[in-house]
């Protein structure tokens, strides 16, 4: 099979959403990491065959944000660009679409990745307010207007928070956190285990940062001259003891999933450059690695967190590999319960037999190879960008450690899993 190379990649610092919209829009973030990425290439941005951007919640004024980003990055009028949406795996979907088009020989050089400014998620009017407004604009005479006016209720102004809608499964009516509670229950994952995992995630990021493992981050500057250089959701004080004090936020009072052992609501973008062998030769590129396979799988939406198990397992099997053959594994930490659930599922004979059709448990992975530099609990999870982040960081890890193969995967709200198999150049 033809190879699809990852030439280079960059991401912004992931910026935790505060109470107000952050300094950067989705487009700003993608441009922020894309400009230094493109500036260090030997070819011109106008030589891309296409630009593909994953975005789960672009703002209303960034319709087809892929095209917005492409033009803002100076790719010129003639480079087509599009936007993909697959919830939490939108960034990975962008990479996979680029991968497929390169495999098909339709494209040779593609800019792909994802972006989301979750702090910019809009507040919406509820249906009652929308109906009232329609009546108001429809009213012609003063009398009609007066009639509509008296029907107004202050309660109509209560906003619908778009981000909460987006993070609730519309079919099973569970929040993403509740699906994590279900996975925890299935595998007996306790609150202590979740908090310990979360604390470890922060420690791993801090250690990785100190060791210089995050050189894919490009600092960004806002219009007020503030510089953002690092993921700002990472905490030095996230100990199990402190995490234990937090209240559960999804299944309130009696649940186990807290804000502290969940991924953070974050703004961020990650972009990669994918190239065919032909393009690598033509522009004399030095690839970071290659994508050698990809897989999408689906499962019960109420256990969406186990999606990576369903995506990675068949992908490894058809390549004649097991978890032990991986030198690095990046699974997006949507929730500690969900990440631990994936590991538990692979180690469970019953689950692997029932759900994956295997004879026995698929096996265990060395914790030192799994999310070696921490994950979304500490770094944050800008849903459009995370898929591109895990692929980029897995490749960076191979480059650093000299390992040969890695996998990157995410669980996807709605009950899916996406995965990519990667190798070092």
């Amino acid at each position: 099979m033809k190879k699809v190379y990852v030439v280079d990649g960059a991401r912004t610092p992931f910026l935790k959403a505060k109470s107000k919209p952050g300094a950067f829009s989705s487009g700003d973030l993608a441009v922020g990491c894309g400009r230094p990425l493109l500036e260090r290439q030997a070819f011109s941005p106008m030589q891309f065959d296409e630009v593909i951007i994953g975005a789960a919640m672009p703002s209303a004024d960034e319709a087809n944000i892929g095209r917005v980003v492409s033009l803002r990055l100076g790719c010129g009028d003639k480079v087509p660009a599009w936007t993909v949406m697959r919830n939490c795996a939108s960034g990975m979907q962008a990479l996979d679409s680029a991968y497929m088009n390169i495999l098909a020989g339709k494209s040779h050089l593609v800019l792909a990745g994802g972006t989301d400014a979750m702090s910019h998620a809009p507040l919406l009017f509820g249906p009652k307010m929308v109906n009232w407004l329609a009546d108001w604009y429809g009213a012609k005479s003063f009398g009609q207007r007066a009639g509509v006016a008296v029907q107004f209720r202050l309660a109509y102004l209560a906003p619908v928070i778009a981000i909460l809608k987006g993070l609730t499964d519309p079919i099973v009516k569970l929040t993403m956190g509740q699906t994590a509670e279900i996975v925890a229950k299935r595998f007996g994952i306790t609150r202590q285990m979740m908090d310990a995992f979360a604390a470890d995630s922060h420690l791993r990021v801090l250690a990785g940062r100190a060791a210089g493992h995050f050189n894919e981050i490009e600092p960004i500057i806002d219009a007020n001259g503030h510089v953002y250089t690092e993921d700002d959701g990472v905490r030095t004080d996230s100990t199990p003891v402190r995490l234990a004090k937090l209240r559960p936020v999804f299944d309130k009072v009696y649940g186990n999933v807290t804000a502290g052992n969940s991924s953070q609501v974050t703004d961020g973008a990650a972009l990669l450059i994918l190239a065919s062998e032909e393009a690598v030769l033509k522009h004399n590129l030095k690839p970071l690695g290659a994508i050698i396979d990809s897989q999408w799988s689906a499962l019960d939406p109420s256990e969406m967190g186990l999606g990576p198990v369903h995506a990675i397992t068949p992908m490894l099997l058809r390549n004649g590999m097991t978890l032990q053959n991986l030198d690095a594994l990046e699974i997006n930490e949507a929730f500690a319960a969900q990440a631990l659930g994936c590991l538990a599922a692979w180690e469970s004979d019953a689950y692997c037999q029932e759900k994956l059709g295997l004879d026995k448990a698929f096996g265990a992975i060395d914790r030192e190879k799994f999310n070696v530099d921490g994950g979304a609990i500490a770094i944050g999870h800008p849903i459009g960008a995370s898929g591109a982040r895990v692929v980029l960081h897995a490749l960076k890890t191979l480059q650093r450690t000299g390992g040969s193969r890695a996998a990157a995967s995410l669980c996807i709200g709605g009950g899916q899993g996406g995965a990519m198999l990667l190798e070092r150049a």
Partner: protein
Amino acid sequence: MQTWKHWRLEFSPEDSLAWLYFDKSYADQSETTNTFSSEALRELSAVCSELKARPPSGLAILSAKENGFAAGADIDEFTSFKTPDEAYAMTVLGNEVFDDIAALPFPTLALIHGFCMGGGTELALACCYRIMDDGPKSKMALPEVMIGIVPGWGGAKRMPVLIGAAQALDLMLTGRSVDGKKALRMGLVDAVTPRRHFINAAKTLLHKPPAPHQPAFKDAITNWPVIRGIIASQSRKQVAKRARQDHYPAPYAIIDLWENFGGDPRQVPRESPSSLFSLAAHPTTANLIRIFKLQDRMKALGGDGSGKSGGIQHVHVIGAGVMGGDIAAWCAMRGLKVTLQDLEHARIAPAIARAAALYKKRLKLPHLVQAAMDRLIPDVAGNGVAHCDLVIEAIVENADIKKTLYAAIEPRMRLGAILASNTSSIPLHELSVGLMRPECLVGIHFFNPVAQMMLVEIVEGAQTSAEVMKRAQAFVKKIDKLPLPVKSAPGFLVNRILTPYMTEAQIMLEEGIPAETIDAAAKEFGMPMGPIELADVVGLDVGLAVGTELHKPGNPQPKKIQELVAAKKLGKKSGEGFYNWIDGKAQKSHGSGTVDLAPLWMRMTLPAVNEAVACVREGIVADADLCDAGVIFGTGFAPHRGGPVQYLRSVGKEKLLAEMKVLEEKYGQRFTADTGWATI
């Protein structure tokens, strides 16, 4: 269709509308701009006769030129007049023709796109209606005041009636331009639409002509007798804050023309100071017109106006300090891709913040601000070096550090890319030592604050190739600055001439003359800001460095500035210098007193004039005209006096030499006349 040399008249048979295209010398392809020569005016008069003989149902006047409606009077013809009577005759002609337009017995409409200046605006005002393009390039103005004259073809008469005197005087006294949106809000135009809809808009309006625009009551009353007097006196007070009547008579003449003569210059008695004869005889007018034309000459140094940028699309700026950062921001605002390099992002961040503020103020529209911000790329890694067409180095003024940097970046630069230094003092041949391509090194010297200072010195080292000089000049024109080629010698032109003036002012301060008095004297001469205050604004550290660099052996060196810099009192930026600074304002303790200021400004300005003479003699600039233009646009040197050389010529060489002699005897060699006085 009927054609004249500058006009084309078409009738649309289906609705009997007439379409009059202004297309100056359209037989000549190189004529891209409409201006009113007396020939064009006389032809327009013939068009009027034709229209009166065959009256259409309505007339639309529009421009066939891409760049705009009309740029005003033909300045070359205007300046070729030998006597004031010729200028006056042209004024009468313009008034008569535009009065003819205004008297046409059918609805008339001006369709305005691009620039509409002076006479263009006055023609539009003579029509019943005006429709303007809504783009950012469409601008309307009455800028006559900038060259020392009045809007004399009916502008001063019709605009106050149309939109009220307060708004009209504001436009006429500042010369500033308004875009379509603003013009509509002011009542200056009746509608705003993209140019692509002009024909449809004209038909819609002329088929069913509405009542012509009437000013709101509050605007209308500004023309009533008593209120008119109040407004005139308020306007005079406003103008007095910015310009003295003996230096700049035109704004005062505009107020007088409107208040007492109905805005019609034909009504003004010849001997009145507001008459065209008086203005034409005033030296300021000739000086301002000369500067206006020199500005055009400098623009022409940037190429033929075909919009070529010397092949420069991507600029890489190294050093994100005040100068480097602001140069980068300016270039990105003018459409170039800019990578801005410094040691870390934190050093680049203040430049990004300043750029954001500049774009918000200048570009206004959020999508334009975003596009400019996107073009300005922080580049700590210095990746831009390998792609750019031009590197502008703006790092610390140290030849060794600069040379080390050049050695590192030159091998990475593309062949044909230009290496430019923003150095204000280091000779280029010194910086070129060790370069592989010394012919590609040029000085591109901006002035602080970059966004306000029009002038950019293009410094030619002995090793700089003519091609690189040409491309550097084209680049500077492309970013809407005025390029001035200068030879590489310490201080180049502007700093070299400014320094002896600043130094003398500081010596006077140390002799005990109050700073306020010195500054007042300079302003009486016509400087926009006094030298002591200016030193604080520029930064005493910067001033000291330049002063030391350019110090000539045997001349005294001011001490106070050294003490202040040593005490970290650097002027406005540190809150204390020669003055204390509160909220960006110098705290002046007392007025200038009652002393005679003339000897003070004579003593300060003569060293500058003497240095200007030396620069011309040494060929630092091509000629005395460019010397004056450089000093005016680089320092604000008394524009109404026309620059140092023009000042010398108008006062008289002998008189100034005599003054020099007296000062030389009193203060020593720094007042010794340069040998160039003999030939200037």
